[in-house]
C-alpha cells in the first residue's frame, strides 16, 4: 500500500490511466523580423485567451464560479502589462517568442516558489501551466486531451495543472492520484468541488502503477491500494456506498443556519489550534471561532511572541471571520503543556498546580501583553476573551481588572478597541461548576471545557489506561455538572457554549439541547454533522431523552440508552 495526502474525500475505485507529461518542445533560434515575431506573440496570446475562456466556462458549469476563477486568473495574468512588456523586450533584443516567454515565466516561477506562503507557491504552478500552454499556442501544438477517458478511470499523474484538471471529463473519473501538490493545489480544489476523490503527494507512485491496473484510493486518509484482491474490493465498495450516502445528506446542510426541529436557533462554531485552522473554519462552514487556542503562538520558539505579533494574528482571525465571533482563550500552559523558555518549575502534581490563569496571575506581564493584543484586535471583529481553569471568583476579577486597566491605557494612547468586549469563563473544574451561579453574575458567557471537566470531576487521568473506565462524559456526575452549569447560565441570562470533544459527540446532542446549550464548538470537519444532528430533535423529544437519562445510575446504562435513541 502506498500513502499520500488525502486532499478530496471519498473512495475511488477503478482502473489506472497514466498521464504522460507532454512538455512543449521548441528550438531556440535567433530572429531577424522583430515585427513578425511580435505579431506571432500577439496571435498566440489571443488564441490562449479564447481557449482559456472556453475552459473556464466548462469548469464553471461543472464545478462552480469560484473554481472557474482559477482559469480566469490565468487570463488576468496573461493581460498583465508587465508580463507582456518584458516578453516583448526580449523579442526586440532578438530572442524568439518561445524562448522569451519561457525566460520571463521562469523568472516569476522562481520568485513565487521561493515564498514561504502556500498560496503564493501555488501561483508557480499557475505560471508553469500558463507558460507551457502559451508556448504550445506559439508552436501550434494541441493541448492534452482529457475529455475522452474510459469510465472508472483513476487518473495518475506527476502533477495536474489547472488547465488539465479543468479539461477532464469528470463523468468518467473515479479518482485522481498525483505525485506532487497538496491540499490547496488547484487540482485538489477542483476535485473537491466536483466530488472526485483525490490523493496528492504520493511520492514514487508513477513507478508502481501501469495502465489498466485496478486501484482503490481513499481521499480522506490518502491510502492507495494497487491491485486489491476481491475481499478488499468488497470492503471498499461497501465503504464507498456508506461514504457517498453520508456526503449527500451532509452537503444539504452547508450554508444553512443551525436550527432544531422546532426552528430554534443554535450556533456551531469551530475550535482552532493554529493559523491554518482558521481557513478550515470557513471551508467547513463554521459560524465563527468558539475556541481559539493561543498556545501554538508560544510553542516551538525561543521567546514569547510580543504584543504586535499576537495582535496581527488575532486581527487576521477577526478579519477572516467577518463579524462572526472569535473567542480567544488566554494562554493555557502548565499541566501537560510545557514551554521551555517560560521557566516553569517542576511540580509534583502539574494538573493541580500552576496552570493557565494561575500561571498568568503569577506572571502578569505575559497576560498583560496578550490581553492588550486581544483588545486591539477587538476593533476588527466580534472578539471575546475566554479565561481557562477558573476555580475561584478572584481569578475572574483579576483578569477583568487587568482588562479595564488596559482599556484606559489604550484610550490614552488613542488605540482602537471594543469598549464592550465580553469576557467569558471556561468551566472545567468542579469548583467552577459548583459556583457557576456566582460566576455567572460577573462573566459575560460560559464555555464548558469537557476534557478537563471530566478529568477533574472523576479525579481520573485521561491518559492512564488503568483508570480510563472512569473517564467518560456519560458518568452521571459529569452530566449533572454540565446540566447545573448550563442552568446557572440560563438563570443569569448569559449564553453558554461547549468546546472540547463532547460537543461533537452526536450521542450527547439531545442532552445538550435539553439542558439549554447555545453554541457547540467543534472541529471544522464536524460542523455539518452536528448541524444535522441538532436539526433532528424537537425540544420536547430532547427533553424526554434527557429526563430518562438523568434518572439512570451508570454510564453504561446511559450510553446504551442514548445509542438506542440515536437517529
Amino acid at each position, binding site marked *: 500500500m502506498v500513502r499520500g495526502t488525502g486532499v478530496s474525500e471519498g473512495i475511488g475505485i477503478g482502473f489506472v490511466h497514466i498521464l504522460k507529461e507532454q512538455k512543449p518542445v521548441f528550438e531556440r533560434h535567433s530572429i531577424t523580423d522583430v515585427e513578425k515575431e511580435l505579431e506571432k506573440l500577439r496571435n498566440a496570446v489571443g488564441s490562449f485567451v479564447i481557449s482559456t475562456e472556453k475552459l473556464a466556462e466548462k469548469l464553471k458549469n461543472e464545478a462552480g464560479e469560484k473554481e472557474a476563477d482559477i482559469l480566469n486568473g490565468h487570463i*488576468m495574468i496573461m493581460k498583465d*502589462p508587465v508580463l507582456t512588456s518584458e516578453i516583448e523586450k526580449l523579442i526586440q533584443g532578438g530572442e524568439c517568442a518561445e524562448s522569451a516567454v519561457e525566460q520571463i515565466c521562469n523568472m516569476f516561477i522562481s520568485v*513565487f516558489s521561493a515564498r514561504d506562503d502556500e498560496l503564493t507557491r501555488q501561483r508557480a504552478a499557475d505560471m508553469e501551466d500558463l507558460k507551457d500552454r502559451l508556448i504550445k499556442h506559439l508552436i501550434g501544438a494541441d493541448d492534452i486531451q482529457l475529455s475522452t477517458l474510459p469510465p472508472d478511470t483513476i487518473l495518475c499523474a506527476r502533477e495536474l495543472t489547472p488547465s488539465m484538471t479543468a479539461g477532464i471529463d469528470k463523468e468518467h473519473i473515479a479518482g485522481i492520484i498525483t505525485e506532487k501538490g497538496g491540499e490547496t493545489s488547484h487540482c485538489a480544489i477542483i476535485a473537491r468541488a466536483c466530488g472526485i476523490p483525490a490523493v496528492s503527494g504520493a511520492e514514487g507512485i508513477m513507478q508502481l502503477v501501469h495502465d489498466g491496473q485496478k486501484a482503490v484510493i481513499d481521499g480522506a486518509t490518502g491510502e492507495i491500494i494497487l491491485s486489491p484482491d476481491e475481499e478488499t474490493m468488497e470492503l471498499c465498495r461497501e465503504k464507498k456506498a456508506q461514504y457517498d450516502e453520508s456526503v449527500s445528506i451532509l452537503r444539504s446542510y452547508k450554508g444553512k443556519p443551525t436550527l432544531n426541529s422546532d426552528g430554534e436557533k443554535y450556533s456551531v462554531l469551530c475550535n482552532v489550534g493554529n493559523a491554518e485552522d482558521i481557513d478550515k473554519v470557513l471551508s467547513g462552514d463554521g459560524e465563527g471561532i468558539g475556541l481559539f487556542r493561543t498556545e501554538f503562538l508560544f510553542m516551538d520558539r525561543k521567546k514569547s511572541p510580543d504584543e504586535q505579533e499576537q495582535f496581527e494574528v488575532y486581527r487576521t482571525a477577526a478579519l477572516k471571520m467577518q463579524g462572526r465571533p472569535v473567542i480567544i482563550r488566554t494562554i493555557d500552559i502548565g499541566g501537560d503543556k510545557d514551554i521551555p523558555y517560560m521557566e516553569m518549575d517542576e511540580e509534583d502534581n502539574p494538573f493541580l498546580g500552576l496552570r493557565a490563569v494561575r500561571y498568568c496571575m503569577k506572571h502578569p506581564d505575559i497576560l498583560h501583553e496578550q490581553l492588550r493584543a486581544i483588545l486591539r484586535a477587538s476593533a476588527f471583529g466580534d472578539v471575546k476573551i475566554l479565561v481557562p481553569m477558573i476555580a475561584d471568583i478572584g481569578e475572574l476579577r483579576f483578569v477583568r481588572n487587568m482588562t479595564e486597566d488596559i482599556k484606559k491605557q489604550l484610550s490614552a494612547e488613542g488605540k482602537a478597541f471594543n469598549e464592550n468586549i465580553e469576557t467569558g469563563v471556561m468551566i472545567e473544574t468542579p469548583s467552577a461548576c459548583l459556583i457557576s451561579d456566582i460566576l455567572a453574575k460577573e462573566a459575560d458567557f460560559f464555555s464548558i471545557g469537557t476534557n478537563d471537566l471530566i478529568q477533574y470531576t472523576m479525579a481520573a487521568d485521561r491518559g492512564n489506561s488503568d483508570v480510563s473506565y472512569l473517564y467518560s462524559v456519560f458518568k452521571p456526575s459529569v452530566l449533572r455538572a454540565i446540566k447545573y452549569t448550563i442552568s446557572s447560565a440560563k438563570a443569569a441570562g448569559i449564553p453558554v457554549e461547549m468546546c472540547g470533544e463532547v460537543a461533537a459527540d452526536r450521542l450527547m446532542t439531545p442532552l445538550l439541547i435539553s439542558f439549554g446549550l447555545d453554541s457547540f464548538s467543534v472541529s471544522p470537519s464536524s460542523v455539518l454533522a452536528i448541524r444535522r444532528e441538532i436539526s433532528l430533535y424537537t425540544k420536547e423529544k430532547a427533553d424526554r431523552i434527557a429526563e430518562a437519562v438523568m434518572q439512570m445510575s451508570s454510564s453504561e446504562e446511559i450510553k446504551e440508552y442514548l445509542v438506542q435513541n440515536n437517529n
Partner: protein
Amino acid sequence: MVKQKLLVINPEGLHLRPAGVFAQEMDRFKCDITIRYKGTRVNAKSLLSILAACIKCGSEIDIECDGPDELEAINKAIELIESGFEGV
C-alpha cells in the same frame, strides 16, 4: 503625489482574484501607482508583481499615486481595499 495607509481585510488577502481585480482597475489610470509593503515597492498595475509580494489578510500596505489623475486613482484604491473587494 498622494499616499494612504490601508489594511487588507478580505479573507484571502491580495491573492489571485482580488489582486487581479485591483491591478485591472489600477491599470485604467494614467498615474504611477505603487504599493509599499514590508520595505518593497510593488507596481500596482501588475498582477504578477502584486502576487509576488504575497500580501495577506491583516497586512498593512501604503498606496502611493503619482501623476495627473492621482486623486481619482487613490480613491478607487481605497474603495476597493476597504470594501474587502465586496461586490467585485
